[in-house]
């Protein structure tokens, strides 16, 4: 179960159900047993029907809250200690990206 099939594909997971839920909520919202069960039943179907290594099935299940709210709520209240270390690297990458896209524009 993942919300990032991008990684499942690159890592080579044998069977994956991808669900577009925010991080920290692989199976759904707390106290929403019906939603959790729908997702798990889909995962069981994938297990039963997949016949090819690397199968990724994309669930149609939608997160019921606005994306901006979900993006805000999954993140830790305090940024992880890593963020301080890698923020400068990210900035560098973004700068390089911008420079490259400017250079390729006619």
């Amino acid at each position, binding site marked *: 179960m993942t919300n990032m099939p991008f990684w499942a594909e690159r890592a080579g997971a*044998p069977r994956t159900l991808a669900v577009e839920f925010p991080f920290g909520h692989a199976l759904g919202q*707390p106290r929403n047993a019906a939603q959790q069960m729908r997702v798990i039943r889909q995962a069981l179907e994938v297990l039963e029907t997949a016949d090819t290594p690397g199968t990724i099935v994309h669930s149609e299940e939608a997160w019921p809250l606005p994306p901006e709210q979900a993006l805000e709520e999954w993140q830790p209240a305090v940024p*992880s200690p890593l963020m301080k270390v890698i923020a400068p690297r990210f900035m560098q990458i973004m700068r390089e990206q911008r420079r490259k896209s400017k250079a390729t524009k006619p």
Partner: protein
Amino acid sequence: MPVDSFKYLPRAIATYYRMTAAKSELPIPWTPVPRPLSQCTFGLVTSGGLYHMGVERPFDVEQEKQEPERGDPSYRTLPTDVQPSELGASHLHINTRDVVEDTNILLPIHRFQELAAEGRVGRLAKHAYSFMGYQGFPPNTTAWQEIYGPEAARKLAAEAVTCVLLTRPDLTAPQTRPCWHGRSKQLACPRSW
């Protein structure tokens, strides 16, 4: 509609992942399901950092605060008859509020007990296993691959588990192979967050 892997990621992280991700060169593992699910024993594994409070230590987030580029590679064993109130979560990269409120969103013990009761699956194993998904930056999953992963797998096999549901709740990127990024030629492939 295909799931958008980057929908809930800040833009900078998404850009970084897109630029540095490499595909595994290893063959994809495959074990056919040996019998109908109604006769299978299910194991649960999560990388959500859950632990049995008062029985096992939380994941070592204090060490991670001192050394942010390293993550605790050990795992925790969770009896599936545990009271939800006895489970805690130690993970610095996601907000653990909701999983503490209802651990079924990462470790669906109650849902699988219900599925077993209705006969959809055989039964739930007596123990589940929990890892903490952040394995450093650059990620290093060697201890997972060589020590803790095989150890948890042996324990699952000892309980005659036939199928495992793994929930990955974090931005963790699994280690596939090293890749090189940018002109600096520093090893910079994120495999875990």
